[in-house]
């Protein structure tokens, strides 16, 4: 993956830039020592590493604004970073860019149960929001698997999802407002505490913009009452086709489960070997269906789902009768990624979404690819919304295997787009899928997205090298080339 060429002029000014940053953020808030930069050289996409020019850890909005304004004036690039858990390289540093870490923005500013919202700084972890409100019976719905570590600011950047987003939505559906600092240092508030914005929904574009439009300094999220009960079913099927039919029939039956996860045989066996929670080992596909809500609703729907599962050819079906049992059903699924460590030294996690009806076909073609690449693949899915997480197993110490795994991953994502799906359901484009964007979008499609970047950051200094395969200059993008039109009614009055 090629990153933008480092600007030698900026590299040669490193001492001056560090001194300037120190004048804005005194004390230990600026890191320039090469050894101390090491922890910042990658995020959770560890195949890519690059130490930044320097790291700055501001503590106030004024400092963020001053840093960005100065970098903007001097033409210095900036890469924002939350907790560094991006799976797509969204926080990958650049050699000639300042890394702006938001970890010190870790306060919960306000909680309002009446309006059911929480105002938090971006460095607060996802789980900490729930922890702050759970004693009052509330929680924050988006629950990415990294929720113990990932920050709300990063969730905004990536529009993070989780296993419950079929019913409760992604980050974007649970955010009311943000304060951001734009690259020129200007501070703006988008959205607020009400449900709809006053003008264009710029908040909606900032969420999921992968740190390219502004640095988030405050977030207002919606909080929800915790459901009274949750129960889960663990259902085994002799084929992926039957499991897929069950998923479709549950939804067609009017049921939106809180979570609906599928694992293939390899993933099921690896997870069971890892945590021993009683997963059936003789099934080709395992489904976890979680239902939440009032007790009466859960009991009713558990019975309905069981009926549908039986009609779809399930060979085993267990319904949780205790919270411990429900958590045990999930323990295997949650351990699926670490469990891969028993099968291979490394794994590469993909994240495409497909129309669910194409699931059996996509899995069959993935199995063919697995054979031709000579790399095994285990599959876990957010089955309810068709979001696939194929885990490609490889060994980075075998020459060429990383490249093979990446090529295999790219082929899987191309296949997702080919069947009507998308490159990423929740992990983001970042560096990882940047060069695949033309598979899904035409040049005109991408240009329309990039011009929004130009409206926020015309010098293209904020997090460059991410999302867009070619970052065109804004002046070039702005030119009009009008085609078509015949002025069929030249006499028509024109104003």
């Amino acid at each position, binding site marked *: 993956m090629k990153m933008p060429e480092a600007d030698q002029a900026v590299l040669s000014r490193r001492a001056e830039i560090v001194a300037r940053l120190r004048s804005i953020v005194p004390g230990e808030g600026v890191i320039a020592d090469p050894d101390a930069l090491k922890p910042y050289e990658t995020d959770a996409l560890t195949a890519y590493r690059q130490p930044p020019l320097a790291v700055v850890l501001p503590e106030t909005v004024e400092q963020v604004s001053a840093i960005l304004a100065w970098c903007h004036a001097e033409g210095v690039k900036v890469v924002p970073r939350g907790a560094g858990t991006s799976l797509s390289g969204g926080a990958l540093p650049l050699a000639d860019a300042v890394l702006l870490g938001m970890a010190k923005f870790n306060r919960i500013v306000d909680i309002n149960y009446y309006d059911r919202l929480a105002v938090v700084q971006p460095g607060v972890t996802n789980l900490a929001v729930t922890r702050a409100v759970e004693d009052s019976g509330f929680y924050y719905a988006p629950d990415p698997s990294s929720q113990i570590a990932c920050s709300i600011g990063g969730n905004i950047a990536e529009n993070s999802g989780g296993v419950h987003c079929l019913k409760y939505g992604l980050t974007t559906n649970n955010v009311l407002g943000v304060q951001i600092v734009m690259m020129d240092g200007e501070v703006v508030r988008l959205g607020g505490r009400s449900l*709809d914005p006053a003008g*264009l*929904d710029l908040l909606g*574009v900032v969420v999921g913009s992968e740190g390219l439009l502004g640095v988030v300094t405050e977030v207002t999220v919606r909080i929800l009452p915790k459901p009274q009960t949750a129960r889960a079913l663990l259902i085994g099927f002799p084929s992926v086709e039957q499991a897929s039919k069950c998923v479709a029939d549950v939804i067609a039956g009017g049921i939106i489960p809180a979570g609906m996860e599928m694992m293939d045989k390899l993933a099921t066996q690896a997870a069971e070997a890892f945590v021993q929670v009683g997963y059936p080992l003789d099934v080709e596909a395992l489904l976890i269906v979680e239902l939440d*809500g009032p007790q*009466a609703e859960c009991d009713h729907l558990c019975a309905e789902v069981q009926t549908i599962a039986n009609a779809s050819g399930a060979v085993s079906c267990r319904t949780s009768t205790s919270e411990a049992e429900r958590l045990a059903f999930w323990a295997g699924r949650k351990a699926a990624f670490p469990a891969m460590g028993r099968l291979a030294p490394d794994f590469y996690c993909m994240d495409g979404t497909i129309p669910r009806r194409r699931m059996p076909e996509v899995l069959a073609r993935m199995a063919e690819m697995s054979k031709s690449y000579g790399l095994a693949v285990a599959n876990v899915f957010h089955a309810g919304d068709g979001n696939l997480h194929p885990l490609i197993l490889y060994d980075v110490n075998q020459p060429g295997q990383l490249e093979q795994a990446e090529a295999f991953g790219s082929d899987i994502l191309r296949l997702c787009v080919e069947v009507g799906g998308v490159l990423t359901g*929740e992990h983001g484009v970042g560096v990882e899928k940047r060069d695949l964007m033309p598979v*899904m979008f035409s040049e005109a*499609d991408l240009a329309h997205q990039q011009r929004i970047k130009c409206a926020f950051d015309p010098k293209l200094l904020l997090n460059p090298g991410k999302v867009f395969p070619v970052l065109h200059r804004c002046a070039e993008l702005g030119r009009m080339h009008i085609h078509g039109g015949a002025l069929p*009614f030249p006499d028509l009055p024109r104003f």
Partner: protein
Amino acid sequence: MNASSLPKPSTSNDVIDAIADAVRADAPLEIRGGGSKATIGAPRNAPILDMSGFDTVIDYDPAELVLTAGAGTPLSGISALVESENQMLAFEPFDHGPLLGQVAGAATIGGVIAAGVAGSRRVSGGGARDHLLGFEGISGRGERFVAGAKVVKNVTGYDLPKLAAGSWGRLFAMTQLTLKVLPRGRESATCIVEGLSPTQAVAAMARAMGSQADVSAAAYLPAALAGGASLTALRVEGFGPSVAARCTMIEVALAEFGAVGRVDAATAGKVWTDLRTLAPLAGTAPLWRIATPPSTAPSLVAALEPFGAQWLFDWAGGLTWLTLDGDPARVRAAAAAASGHAILVRAPEAMRRIVPALHPQANGVAALEARVRRAFDPNGVFETGRFHEVANAN
């Protein structure tokens, strides 16, 4: 308004040609679906780009929870179609025709999305923005592009569908939309509490929304509009056993606010229909749609009642519909003081000429918004004056 209509486009290329012509002639164009909301915004006379030819449902697979349709497809047709599969547009979009003195049935799916229309279920199920998954459009550059996708979960590239919802035709002409659809609750029940003050009602609604009863909609009609005692209404929807259990939960949660009753289907139907047609606020007085946090709604209406405001709450107090035959600046100031914003939905032409329909933004946001508009529409083809854009852009 006697604006001329251009030849009605039926393909993307027709739209591209119409926009290209307008750019060359430096003339504005107004994108229109069914025209049901044409009287929102300033009077203007730009030629109409009539999108009603894009009126076909292109793909609908209920089990995928996804529907793709031409932007000009009538809302009524799409609602009937998804209903026939026991599904719904969960944001409960509605036809503005009746509340603006026009016949029902003209509203199109593109129009309700472009205007960000959402009904009572907005408070629990999300708004138009939350249910537009993707679209195909022609920008003011005369270029066709797609954004978003046709699957329910996607974070690939910028989320332009969010920007499309509520854009009021100022960025691009949508030709095709992909929407998320959801199962309809098999049963519905409405619980009521009578006689609460606005402050008590918002407190009661907050209590209900914060309970585990999974309330889908919550509204309040003050005594002046309810015809007797004030009415606080809470709707639950879902499977039979669940609806029954949740009504009981509401009774428990609201015990301190008084007796919780249940109304029959016809009465419930009228309550929720009134919130779409706004029949209780019918007439010619200027009508405002004010979004605030629920907690400030009582102070908002208290500030405006002395000047003759009539009003009701939806979205558990997060939305106030209000009529006031008086100084519009007073409404905007009260909305801002309540941390909210006010859209002028219905007003005489003379008033709409000088009062912008959309709430003015803070300077920095207004400038950013103008840059984003110009990113899609560099020549201002879609700046018809309807939203006083020229003043904003400067």
